[in-house]
């Protein structure tokens, strides 16, 4: 391994090191919750810092026989993964200590970080599959980790079964693509996937996208999402819905743009239909939920649909904007969705427990109101910029189908107002009831919520310039 390759793998090496360290703490120390959480927090921050340094120094290159690439695009997503993992560690610190298994839980988080950071750098279909599994298998355990609640085991089981099916579908697709092109390297695949596709190639493409649709909870492959997120510990739901998901979107973007640019008319059409179905299914289901956790789960389905709309816009004049849209939306979504999930830890999952929260706990209520408004896409909060770029990308394509997708996105944005604003209404317009919780959860969660609220508010000033920087150096 050359020195350059060593530097390129720095984030992954750091997360591996801390993963082992945290696991050892669990083995050799009895009162270990604090140590494990602190180590995991330092570890995620170190991964974040190493990726940030690499990004700032303009490091880029291709390693291990072109199978592992480091570019601005990959580093940006490593930042999102490590950053969201840091907040997940903070959120889980006290709770995982109470379960008595803090080092194990922290190890799981760090394994997901390792898998996801590897994933965004992979340029080889089998490497991609392995990295996805490395990120997914620990996440089954994270979802089922809360042994005090039956839903957790149930959610974990459903997630495991559907996840395994999804993985096999994905693998079938990859194998067929490998069979058609004789190589798993994206650059070789690109040579085969041009012009008219053979039926086998189309089948491979469709199976692969279906596998990804499972992982990204895109309709009609989304049905595991509400159960898994409802059962999972809050920190797991918050992290899994943003960090690994952003990485999965990133690698799908890389596969499609680097591996199959010639087949763009086929897969953009598939993405357009997936996007429309996913947006409507997510929002219409979320409208009926009384449980905030399930509501947010369906909302995450809807937001997958919005991001898939950017994928549909990867054609014509929209490519550069669409790549930027994915960069911006995943970061914006990470901030606002993570924040909203963490508030559940502080308040509760019944919509009624939010009644009159503004009087009993104004800071948390204001933050939650910001997250909800950001999820709708009200300017100048984070979600607005994501949607702005998707609309711009879609409008620049010149394709009627994509215009319809953009129209569906606008309709869905308005459709989502009642359920997000239902929470704001409960918090601000209703009177406090006996269900209203005054204060629970740890200071670390509260701190995370406030930091994320500030990020969601100042997103346009802080993160837009960063993503513009990456957009210039990355894929497009």
């Amino acid at each position, binding site marked *: 391994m050359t020195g350059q390759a060593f530097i390129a793998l720095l984030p992954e090496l750091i997360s591996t090191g801390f993963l082992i360290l945290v696991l050892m703490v669990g083995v050799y120390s009895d009162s270990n919750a604090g140590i494990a959480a602190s180590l995991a927090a330092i570890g995620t921050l170190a991964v974040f810092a190493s990726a940030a340094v690499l990004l700032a120094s303009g490091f880029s290159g291709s390693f291990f026989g072109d199978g592992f690439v480091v570019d601005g695009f990959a580093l940006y997503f490593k930042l999102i993964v490590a950053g969201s993992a840091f907040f997940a560690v903070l959120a889980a610190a006290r709770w995982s200590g109470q379960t008595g298994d803090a080092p194990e839980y922290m190890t799981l988080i760090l394994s997901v970080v390792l898998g996801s950071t590897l994933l965004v750098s992979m340029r080889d279909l089998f490497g991609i599959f392995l990295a996805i599994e490395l990120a997914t298998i620990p996440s089954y355990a994270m979802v089922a980790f809360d042994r005090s609640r039956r839903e957790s085991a149930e959610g974990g089981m459903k997630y495991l079964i559907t996840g395994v099916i999804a993985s096999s579908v994905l693998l079938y697709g990859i194998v067929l693509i490998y069979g058609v092109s004789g190589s798993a390297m994206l650059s070789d695949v690109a040579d085969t996937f041009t012009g008219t596709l053979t039926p086998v190639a189309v089948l491979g493409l469709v199976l692969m996208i279906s596998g990804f649709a499972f992982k990204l909870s895109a309709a009609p492959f989304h049905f595991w999402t509400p159960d898994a997120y409802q059962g999972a510990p809050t920190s797991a739901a918050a992290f899994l819905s943003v960090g690994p998901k952003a990485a999965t979107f990133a690698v799908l973007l890389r596969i499609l743009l680097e591996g199959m640019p010639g087949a763009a008319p086929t897969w953009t059409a598939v993405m357009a239909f997936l996007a429309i179905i996913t947006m409507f299914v997510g929002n219409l289901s979320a409208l009926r939920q009384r449980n905030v956790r399930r509501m947010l789960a369906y909302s995450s389905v809807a937001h997958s649909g919005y991001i898939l709309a950017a994928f549909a816009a990867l054609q014509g004049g929209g490519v550069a904007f669409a790549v930027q849209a994915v960069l911006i939306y995943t970061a914006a979504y990470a901030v606002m969705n993570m924040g909203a999930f963490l508030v559940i830890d502080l308040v509760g999952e019944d919509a009624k427990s939010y009644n009159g929260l503004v009087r009993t706990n104004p800071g948390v209520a204001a933050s939650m109101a910001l997250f909800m408004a950001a999820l709708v896409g009200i300017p100048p909060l984070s979600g607005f910029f994501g949607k702005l770029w998707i*609309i*711009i990308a879609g409008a*620049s394509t010149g394709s009627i189908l994509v215009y319809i997708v953009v129209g569906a996105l*606008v309709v869905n944005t308005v459709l989502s107002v*009642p359920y997000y604003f239902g929470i704001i209404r409960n918090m601000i317009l209703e009177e406090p009831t006996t269900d209203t919780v005054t204060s629970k959860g740890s200071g670390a969660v509260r701190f995370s919520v406030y930091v994320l609220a500030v990020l969601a508010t100042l997103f346009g000033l802080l993160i837009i310039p960063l993503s513009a920087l990456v957009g210039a150096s990355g894929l497009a």
Partner: protein
Amino acid sequence: MITTLTIFIPLLGAILVMLLPDEERLLRYAALGVAAIPLLLSVYVYFAFGDDLGVAALSQDVTWIWSLNIGYRVGLGGLGFGMFFLSTFLTVIAILASWDVHRNLKQYFAAIFVAEVGMLGVFAAQDLILFYVFFELTLIPMYLLVGVWGDENRRPAAIKFFIYTFLGSTVMLAGFLAFGILADTYAMDALGGGGGLSRTAQVAVAAPILFGLLVKVPAVPLHSWLLDVYVSSPTSTNVLLSGVLPKLGTYGLISVAIPLLPQGVEPFLPYVAAFGVINIVYGAFVAFLQPDLKALVAYSSIGTLGFILLGAASGNAVGLNGAVFQQVSHGLYSALLFILVGVIAARTGTRRIEALGGLAARMPWAGGLLALGALAAMGLPGLAVFVSEFMSIMGVYATFPVQGVLAALGIILSAMYLLYMLARVIFGPIERPAYEEVGDAGPAEMASVVPLAVLLVVLGIFPALLMNIQRPAVDAVLSVIGGS
């Protein structure tokens, strides 16, 4: 710089009132003091730079998102200055008129200040995306002002208001984005005259933008969110809801849609004028039937907004000047009437017109000013509304004679219902013994209505005070659209 300063000082005010101790007198004086600063700054701008506000002066231009050419671009032009000033003025009035709000006063003032940032920003924005961002920034504080501090019907009213106007502005944003993508910039000064778009493209872009703006006004078939919101709101929120918010729509029409998309808007102008007539006639008829004094004023307010649409659609100097002027005079008179309705309701405990009567004897000041406001609403010469309504009708008559004639008839209708209202509410014998005890408006209430009445009279007698500032900007619009 002074423009940016004026826009964002209310934000500091919002933070300040949130930090102050929860003491009512202190909060009221602090809020008043902060609100006075933007007002003084805009008065300063009037005297120091009033003659130079041709198109957009005192501007600031910082590119914000390079790849899309979106910028923080603000500047004060003659078209926007009147409303810019009025927003700062009505915020002060709203704070003075907030005597009926006692609960969560801090948050109330904070919401008003955040709304003020949005309102001032819209009238100064010189970039389409920035215009939209400020436009939406008013939405949440207004939702809260209605939803938290309104009457018992406030919750459905607030959510209805939010969904309607959010739908409108989202559609408008889609139009803005399409415009910006086709023209490759969002800077308004570069987009004048259509930004190089073909006529067909302009029409396609103008349609969603006009829809969003007309929902905000609201033009009559798109108005169904309005009544509940106006009637449920506290008095001081009404001042901003009727005085400033509709003008976000009309200002967008006059200084964004018309000059930037002249050929795109042109085919819609007869309909805009027709909407104006419908507003006037429908507003007058429905106001006639209202048993509730506040609902009557609400419909009167919708009605006279029609004159702005008429003037805007006229495409000539007289009409456009009238429309720009009517934005200000409408804000003054409707704020005056809403506050007086609040005063009367607070004194008598009812807003039902049939239960009121003979109040002039007990409340000479409030009653007299109510009469002044009503006379202003029906366009009595010598008051500001007359100037602008007259000019709007003259302007539109030259372009669309049918709409002009119908609008003039609408004035007669409005005179009928307003005089009938005055006869029932303030004249005649005192209906109920309880009203023998009713006192006149107090000092705080007088302080909030007298400045409005004074400005109505002053601008009625010396319209040139405002006309001189807006005329060069209106001429610039005319040179773009090729009118005279």
